[in-house]
């Protein structure tokens, strides 16, 4: 208890000197190349680069925070950070709880990858996906048996060790994995899901939403956003018109 009070008191003292507003950027840090913890222990990836550029353009001071995917929305609404920038697709269900900016990443394909030749849509297929993702929702509706994992990496591991027949995830996440593992290959058809990826914000934060929308628009206009997309996702990645 004493430690708590001390920490709280010291925090108050330390911050009263800083006047500038800080926007805390929440991300998962486990979804390369969108976001990941790099070898230096720092948050890195496409979203880190986009986020930092947006903050520069909007003249905001940004601080990066990593948070478990499962509790990423509750921690936004309770105010532990101010944005979610974690490869989160814009969907109607999420839009009821939080707000999204305009997309900074176009609607991308999701794909199945497996270690064998199989039909991921068949009723006896066991498909792994990360919990609370549009991919998990899609598998549940497809008729296959859904096996959910807390992190995308665990879903991949489940396919490798035979626990699941296939994984369903964003294709951009799977491409480097399939490329570097001779046992894994894409199976079935790619599926287009979601309305693109946007920054998640509290519904009451209209001002911040407008600021970010403006910055995203300016990055789309001068082509920097498309450059970053091709830099992180390759020449074949879908870019903005």
């Amino acid at each position, binding site marked *: 208890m004493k430690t708590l009070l001390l920490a709280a008191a010291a925090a108050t003292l330390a911050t009263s000197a800083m006047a500038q507003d800080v926007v805390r950027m929440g991300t998962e840090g486990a979804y390369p190349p969108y976001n990941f913890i790099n070898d230096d222990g720092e948050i890195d990836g496409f979203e880190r680069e986009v986020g930092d550029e947006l903050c520069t353009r909007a003249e905001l001071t940004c601080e990066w925070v990593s948070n478990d995917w499962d*509790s990423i929305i509750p921690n936004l609404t*309770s105010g*532990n950070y101010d944005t979610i920038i974690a490869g989160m697709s814009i969907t109607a269900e999420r839009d009821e709880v939080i707000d999204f900016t305009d997309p900074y990443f176009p609607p991308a394909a999701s794909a199945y990858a497996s270690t064998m030749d199989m039909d991921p849509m068949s009723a006896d297929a066991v498909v792994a996906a990360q919990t609370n993702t549009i991919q998990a929702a899609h598998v549940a509706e497809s008729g296959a048996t859904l096996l959910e994992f807390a992190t995308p990496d665990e879903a991949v591991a489940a396919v490798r060790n035979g626990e699941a027949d296939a994984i369903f995830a964003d294709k951009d996440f799977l491409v480097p994995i399939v490329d570097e593992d001779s046992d894994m290959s894409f199976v079935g058809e790619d599926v287009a899901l979601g309305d693109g990826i946007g920054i998640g914000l509290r519904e009451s934060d209209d001002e911040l939403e407008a600021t970010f929308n403006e910055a995203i628009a300016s990055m789309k206009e001068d082509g920097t956003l498309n450059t970053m997309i091709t830099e992180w996702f390759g020449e074949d990645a879908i870019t903005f018109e």
Partner: protein
Amino acid sequence: MFEYCSDPSALDGARWLSCYLTNGVHLRFYSSFGTVLLLLAITAPLALAFGFLGAAASRSSVAPLRWAGKTYTAMVRGVPDIVFFLFFVIALDQAFEWMRHQALCPGWDAPIRQGAEFNVCPEAKLPRSSAPQAWHEAYNFSLAIVTFAIVFGAFAANVLYGAMRAVPRAQMETAAAYGMTERQAFRRILVPQMWVYALPGLSNLWMILIKATPLLFLLGVEDIVYWAREIGGSKTSAFSYPHPDWRIWYFSGLLVFYLIFTKISEIVLAQLTARLSAGQATAEGERLRRAAPAGPAA
């Protein structure tokens, strides 16, 4: 760390490994062992204090105090840890912020609760959003300590309550015969004697507490299990040190750590038991008395 680490892709064998094991994420992994040990070092005495107060309250002759003590132990012991960690910590955090909001922002007219949102004025945020990340981590860590202390305090309260009742009644009656008040007897006779009865239960709690630290990650504190999972997972060539799924090695490392740690705990607890048994009216106390060299009793 080492000079030759600047280009990891050109390295192999022992050099690659030495660079890999000393890169940024690994240093954070190693320091998380310190986090866990620090948490245990602060939580254990705090939980014991909570437990002592709970037990003392439970056997109080003042009815409201007794009810408070019994309610605390019954409620906390009945709620699953994970629920407690998800619900209570957020409630505690919001309670602090709400109080600060009332004190610091009297003129604020926007509602604090909007649907699922909890919006206090920026000055009331704990820590302030402009505070460096280290303060946010320290704050979460403090919340974790308080929560662990409350949860384990409730179990400790029950153990101590039982231990207090296990002290032979004749001891308390003798104290009364010597003219001690109830308080004096509690302090001089009951408390010094109860530990030997409490120790087996408390040592169980300690062992469970050691292994409960992965709950830390629910509070945003990155503990050793989080880092083992994060670093051990397979890494593609987007990383400087790509490798397949190595979680088995990292978790084996944790296994060794936990086994050594619990072994040391057992040794220390065994010594403590022997020490506390000296002069006690228990079988172990009697054994020690007989084994001791003849002479005036210490």
